């Protein structure tokens, strides 16, 4: 039994990190630029498909395929921001509706090109680690490691670099930041592209572990939003923690309750947090 729990725990941590990377994208976009972009889930899905296509379809080595896919999604995010989201900056509802519209468009295109048949990537890194009786596939550990590194890097970049502090300043007071010389248009575009890249990266790594269908984005954006709100918008390490919490709750919970209700944990957390501690568990005061 203990092995089962530990195994599910570890699994939950890894899945949670995937949630966390999306949550990070959500918290950055919403926290810094005030834009609601639910399409990050669709970006993740697109990143997964691009990675699979580059790697299995075009024969590009997996790591390079992931990088290319990430860059491509960053570009998609940038274009989406400039063409669409820019006009919804002050209006959350409009941003939400535009996001939903964009998701439909992306999902529809993917369905047309690749259909609804689940696709599987070849085994990138077969083999497992044995950690005291518990089996952890090597690839999962790699995914975890990469995502953790990226999250830590983002945290460091935001707190230690000039660009990062400019971003915080902008989040607090856009006009003042502009007056101080922060190039706000560049910053907004940068945040949009970076968040999309995070989602794309998550998707590319996801593709190495699970089969991909056009529907995977929906679940992940919901979990990402749940994790971001659970932690408190604006907190980088908080998104990581939030993702882990939800991932682990699902993993361990599925031992005791039917796995059909997995999605409910995140939903319940979400409702409870928004009612009782709307600023989130690790609240950072900005927006």
């Amino acid at each position, binding site marked *: 039994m203990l092995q089962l729990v530990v195994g599910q725990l570890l699994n939950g941590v890894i899945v949670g990190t995937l949630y966390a990377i999306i949550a990070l994208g959500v918290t950055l976009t919403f926290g810094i630029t005030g834009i609601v972009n639910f399409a990050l889930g669709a970006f993740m899905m697109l990143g997964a498909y691009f990675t699979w296509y580059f790697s299995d379809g075009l024969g590009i080595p997996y790591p390079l395929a992931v990088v290319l896919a990430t860059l491509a999604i960053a570009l998609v995010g940038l274009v989406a921001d400039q063409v669409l989201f820019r006009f919804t900056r002050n209006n*959350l509802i409009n941003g*939400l509706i535009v996001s939903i519209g964009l*998701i439909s468009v*992306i999902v*529809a295109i993917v369905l047309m090109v690749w259909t609804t048949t689940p696709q599987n990537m070849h085994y990138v890194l077969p083999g497992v680690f044995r950690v005291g009786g518990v089996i952890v596939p090597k690839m999962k550990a790699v995914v975890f490691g990469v995502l953790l590194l990226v999250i830590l890097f983002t945290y460091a970049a935001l707190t230690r670099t000039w660009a990062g502090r400019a971003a915080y300043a902008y989040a607090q007071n856009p006009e003042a930041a502009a007056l101080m010389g922060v190039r706000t248009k560049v910053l907004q575009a940068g945040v949009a592209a970076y968040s999309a890249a995070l989602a794309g990266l998550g998707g590319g790594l996801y593709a190495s572990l699970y089969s991909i269908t056009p529907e995977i984005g929906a679940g992940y954006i*919901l979990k990402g939003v749940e994790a971001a709100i659970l932690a408190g918008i604006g907190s980088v390490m908080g998104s990581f923690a939030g993702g882990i919490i939800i991932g682990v709750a699902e993993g361990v919970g599925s031992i005791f309750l039917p796995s*059909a209700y997995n999605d409910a944990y995140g939903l319940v957390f979400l409702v409870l947090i928004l009612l009782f501690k709307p600023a989130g568990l690790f609240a950072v005061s900005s927006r």
Partner: protein
Amino acid sequence: MKLLLLWVPLVLVPLVIHNNVVLTILIFTYLLGILAVSFNLIFGFTGQLSLFHAAAFGLSAYATYLAMAHWGVPFWLGMVVGVVFVSLVSLVIGTICFRFNLRELYFAIVTLAFSELFRLVILNWNSFTNGSLGINFTLTPTLWIPGRGVVPVQGTMMWYYLSLVAVVLAVGFYSRIVHSWMGRCFASIRLNDDLADTLGINVFRYKLIAFVAANAGAAVAGSLYSFYISYIDPHYFSIDQSLAIIAMALLGGSRYVAAPIVGALVLTALPHVINVNAEARLLIYGLILILTILVMPRGIVGVLVTGLRRPSRAPQTPERPRHAA
């Protein structure tokens, strides 16, 4: 009330047009029209994006059918069960959301969360709801017609008139509310709820009323719609359905009571006019949402109305006492 004249030709349509496809499109338009018009009360007029509407639609459908199947009640009583059930649920959810002062985005997310929770329950409670397989209806609604007694509602003609009457009543109901002092309260909440608060308007109470009244309309639509197609499954609760509802309201025009019906017409008729498959339909929904927000925020009816008149304010409150139309 000149709009009443518009309804008259619709009454005559089935006598003139015998094309079943056209009539079927109209039936769906009317039923989905009720769904979209009721959504507009909370969305277009009160300014709250509720993602619970599809859930209200589905819950009432299930409740109506299950009441008929397990308690043996006739359809109309079943529909009352559905509406009452949905209204109670909305009362609870609305009280939670508005008591905790959830706004805009967070209100949307929490209503979505509740919608998803209900969907999961329906999906997994196989013994009661048949889960993902859905239920094929074996019961039909019945109607008492003077001179003919109790007849089952069957066939395109009967459904056409039934749904037409339903949508006219729905529009009448919501129109009365919107053009009254209560409609003014809703508008004030939409435009500046802090100001409304200081002017003595109980924002919590009116948001709740709008939410429950809107969901009640969705419930009526759900009962009728599910019995028209004689089928129900958890897909009624899906995000796709929520998406379609928002698209209908926006496309028709979110500032006019009956305008969402136009949106419903376009979305229902589109697959017949342009031969599209499911993917293309999804693409079109998405484009419609994006384009209406960015380019045509007043919707089709808005464009028609302001195109013909000098741009003035949307009809929210009456300037002069209206005389009975």
